[in-house]
């Protein structure tokens, strides 16, 4: 409809303030009389807490208060709640341990907050925090899945026998056993999905401000979903009514899942502001972020694939142990279950699947959603297994996939693990990616690599994900303790400019641009005349925020519903102005027109009439032009595609370089191609980061041994090639925009393509397995071991 509508790479409106350094992040906000909080955190992974002596800390000039778990208990603050309940196979509820905001009685991971020091200055607070004397009685530690599931492992929680939080399953064991019984081939794999730390560019921060005169609390916090935080604080932790609590998530510098959750620190600054009578600010430093932000992934899995004589998949069995950390973070139980096992059919036609998942408590910081959240784990397992099957059966890897991809005539496709895919074209994205990477020219590139003394490998991953979360009734039945609809208000101003109030939150995604483009597409209003407002519970309707690639598919659909109401109301106003019947008025190209005539009113004229209703159908139409809508999705959306990678391996050093990345995604209808490509780029960087570089490593004592940028390897531009990114669109069938979502595709699809490429490069030497991250030493050792074995 307009040059700035769908398909236009409109430059990001929000970038002006970011490029000028004028973004307003939480740490940029300074309130009058603000004080500063610093947390005393446990240096031990497991210890009983004896006395906490704060006398020396309180004597530091400028210190206002030192608060501990005893103060939290005395104040009646609620524990940090979990937002998703999972039941075990036997019907029993998951073990849901208490999670006090400051440790009470014991600490259970390095970084567990023990005391909060509040002072006039951050310097004084830091100095005082170093003087808080805590009596830690160190206890035995289980810091990994392996340690926590060993016989006689130390228990993180006495109620969780064997450290099992829940023992859950999905699929049909009987039909799966039957499928394996008739299989010609069975291929097995054991693998880990490595643990990563999220590392948003902006560390978490929060400012609590209690206004005693009005008995009102304002919290500024680095959140992906301010209304969810207000809901949890109002109902469970701070325990104040919602109308007395405002949560503002201003500019937020990345989240990747880690800023979804309700964290203790944001509750504590809000409460502490009441205690000290001043605003209280806390800003995490990077090393603190490593031990207090929820981590991602961390699975150990065994899987078996059953195939017939022709290579057709007959069945899949998966048994996964998922590290869930010491405490249950907000959505932690959902990640290795409903966002993981439900994806194990991938893009393939599987007659039978059975998956078992045990969530394991360990003495580590919580594990929750991280970009992709369950879906990367499912994709990694499946795509490594399919590659292994191809090698074992001597079938070309691409052909084996082609044989088993769901055909376009099979949609809608009901999987054996609950999901029903509405639409896709996996053959088209496979072909597109192969053409993009010039797979036909691979042998020539391989020869050139070998002429340099290196090895070249080709890796493939055909993947699917589920996003656009989610139908509220469905997730409610699966244990969610919240709805997952989205909300929007579209306010047309008297002169025809528009403000959009969305319940989603933009922390890098570019909603201020793409949501303005929805308005431009539907109402013909230029994006410059549209302001998108998000992140402030006093301004926006109650919405569920941004994660799971849901904002355009769900939040955008809510905006469309509100726009539809605006258009309909405008028809009645225009009909009055045009002296026609509303049934004869159509809205086209930003104008209301009597069908078949040139009699028309511009959208702005109608808006003006709505606010200056002198000549107006006042008996039947209210003045004003503003509409609210809530949209509850009918199904998940199912983006998918093919990710291809070529690597070069230096056999002397084990260094892996990514030579080529070509992807073809189907993310549904694209609003802004530049932003969609950018989302793919960012996801690929994080996916390649996990495959080659990043890993959060705890030692046996529960110390995070690489909790700083001196040794935690973040991906950098120089580690990555130029990406070839393509889209083949099949429009989502059940939302009004046809959008599926793009935020996580890169992080989901690419890790197995990278590892499959590394294994392919090393296969001639006899290497059959490499775990993530494929570090130089790991690759070098695999080569040495293969040489010895040969």
């Amino acid at each position, binding site marked *: 409809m307009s040059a700035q509508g769908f398909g236009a790479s409109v430059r990001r409106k929000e970038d002006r303030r970011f490029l000028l350094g004028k973004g307003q992040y939480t740490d940029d906000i300074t309130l009058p009389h603000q004080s500063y909080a610093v947390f005393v955190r446990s240096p031990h992974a497991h210890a009983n807490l004896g006395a906490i002596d704060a006398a020396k800390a309180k004597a530091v000039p400028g210190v206002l208060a030192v608060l501990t778990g005893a103060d939290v208990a005395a104040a009646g603050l609620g524990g940090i709640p979990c937002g998703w309940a999972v039941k075990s196979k036997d019907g029993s509820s998951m073990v849901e341990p208490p999670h006090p905001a400051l440790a009470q009685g014991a600490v259970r991971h390095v970084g567990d907050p023990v005391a909060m020091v509040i002072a006039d200055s951050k310097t004084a607070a830091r100095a005082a925090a170093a003087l808080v004397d805590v009596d830690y009685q160190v206890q035995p530690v289980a810091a990994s899945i392996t340690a926590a599931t060993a016989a006689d492992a130390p228990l993180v929680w006495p109620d969780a026998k064997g450290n099992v939080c829940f023992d859950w399953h999905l699929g049909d064991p009987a039909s799966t056993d039957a499928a394996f019984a008739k299989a010609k081939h069975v291929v097995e794999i054991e693998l880990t999905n490595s643990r990563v730390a999220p590392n948003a560019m902006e560390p978490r921060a929060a400012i609590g401000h209690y206004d005693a005169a009005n008995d009102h609390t304002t919290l500024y916090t680095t959140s992906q979903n301010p209304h969810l935080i207000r809901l949890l604080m109002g109902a469970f932790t701070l325990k104040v009514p919602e109308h007395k609590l405002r949560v503002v998530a201003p500019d937020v510098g990345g989240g990747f899942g880690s800023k979804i959750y309700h964290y203790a620190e944001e509750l504590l600054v809000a409460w502490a502001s009441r205690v000290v009578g001043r605003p209280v600010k806390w800003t995490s430093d990077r090393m603190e972020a490593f031990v207090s932000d929820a981590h991602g992934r961390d699975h150990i899995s065994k899987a078996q694939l059953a195939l017939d004589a022709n290579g057709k998949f007959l069945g899949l069995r998966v048994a996964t142990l998922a590290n869930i950390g010491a405490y249950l973070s907000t959505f932690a139980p959902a990640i290795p279950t409903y966002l993981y096992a439900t994806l194990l059919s991938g893009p393939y036609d599987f007659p039978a699947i059975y998956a078992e998942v045990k969530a394991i408590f360990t003495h580590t910081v919580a594990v929750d959603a991280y970009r992709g959240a369950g879906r990367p784990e499912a994709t990694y397992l499946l795509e490594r297994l399919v590659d292994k099957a191809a090698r074992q059966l001597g079938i070309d890897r691409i052909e084996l996939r082609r044989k088993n991809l769901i055909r376009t005539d099979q949609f809608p496709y009901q999987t054996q693990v609950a999901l029903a895919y509405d639409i896709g074209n996996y053959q088209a994205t496979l072909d597109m990616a192969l053409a993009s990477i010039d797979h036909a020219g691979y042998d020539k590139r391989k020869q050139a690599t070998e002429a340099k003394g290196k090895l070249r490998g080709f890796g493939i991953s055909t993947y699917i994900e589920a996003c656009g979360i989610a139908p509220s009734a469905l997730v409610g039945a699966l244990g969610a303790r919240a709805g997952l609809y989205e909300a929007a208000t579209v306010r047309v101003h008297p002169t025809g400019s528009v403000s959009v109030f969305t319940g989603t939150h933009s922390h890098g995604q570019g909603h201020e641009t793409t949501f303005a483009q929805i308005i431009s597409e539907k109402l013909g209003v230029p994006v410059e005349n549209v302001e998108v407002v998000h992140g402030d519970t006093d301004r926006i309707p109650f919405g569920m925020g941004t994660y799971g690639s849901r904002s355009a598919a769900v939040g955008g659909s809510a905006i469309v519903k509100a726009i539809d109401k605006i258009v309909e109301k405008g028809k009645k106003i225009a009909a009055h102005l045009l002296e026609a019947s509303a049934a004869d008025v159509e809205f086209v190209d930003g104008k209301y027109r009597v069908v078949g005539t040139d009699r028309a009113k511009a959208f702005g004229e109608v808006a003006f009439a709505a606010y200056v209703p002198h000549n107006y159908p006042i008996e039947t139409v209210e003045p004003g032009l503003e509409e609210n809508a809530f949209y509850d999705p009918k199904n998940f959306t199912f983006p998918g595609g093919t990710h291809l990678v070529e690597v070069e391996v230096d056999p002397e050093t084990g260094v892996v370089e990514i030579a080529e990345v070509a992807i073809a995604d189907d993310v549904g209808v694209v609003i802004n191609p530049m932003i969609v490509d950018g989302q793919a780029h960012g996801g690929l960087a994080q996916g390649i980061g996990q495959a080659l570089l990043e890993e959060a490593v705890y030692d046996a004592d529960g110390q995070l041994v690489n909790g700083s940028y001196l*040794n935690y*390897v*973040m991906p950098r531009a120089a580690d990555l090639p130029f990406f070839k990114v393509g889209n083949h669109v099949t429009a989502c069938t059940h939302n009004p925009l046809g959008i599926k979502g793009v935020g996580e595709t890169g992080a989901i699809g690419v890790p197995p393509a990278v590892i499959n490429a590394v294994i392919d490069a090393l296969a001639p030497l006899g290497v059959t397995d490499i775990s993530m991250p494929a*570090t130089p*030493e790991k690759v070098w*050792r695999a080569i040495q071991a293969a040489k010895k074995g040969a």
Partner: protein
Amino acid sequence: MKDFQFHRPSSVAEAVALLKARPDAKLLSGGQSLIPVLKLDLAEPSDLISLAGIGELRDIRVDGDRIVIGALVTHDAVHRSPEVQQHIPALATLAGTIGDAQVRNRGTLGGSVAHADPAADYPAALLALGATIATDRRKIAADDFFTGLFETALERDEVVVAVHFPIPKRAAYAKFSHRASKYALVGVMVVDTGHNVRVAVTGAGPKVFRHANIEGILERDFAVDALAAASTPPDELNGDLEASAEYRAHLITVMARRAVQACL
């Protein structure tokens, strides 16, 4: 970061006097290691004595068969110096691999040498080139200078003024960087002085060291293939999450080969 007194002397003598008077003072010379240490409260000096005001320490000059580089010359200035590029191109190249652009714009030769980080690049160059460290009071051979982990032969109140680098016949530096910190996991400087071969290794051990085994091999036959016989006992090498001692030992040979290749 704790409070400290800040000084900006205008001469070396003044800096030495300040150091003598303040036993808990530290010299600031670029600050690319010291400032992060202060920010993490890992050191709490009473005084910081900045050398930035001492102009005479910023010269690079050719003096007969050697290049003399002032202690305050930044890594970037060494990297871009026409004199260094002409006479010891390996040194210019090495300086261009230190840290990142911001570090190279602020960090200095004297600061790096006096700090003696076991994974810093310059110590390998000094040791392999047989450089001499000139201080306010004496000259110290590189072989005698680096005494341990962050330890040197400098007295507490001694100030590095310049480093004298003999111009070699040929030299090259090959580095395998830590993927996160970009420090040398293993850095090998190979120098053919014209009279003998000197090989220094940084990053792999508790301090920079000369590699007698590789020097011996290259003295006999300065060729890549000769290094097939090279070996490094891993016992005294560093091992950590990024690289075990065995892997570092292997990388020493690989980097030595690449350095020799670059010399030829």
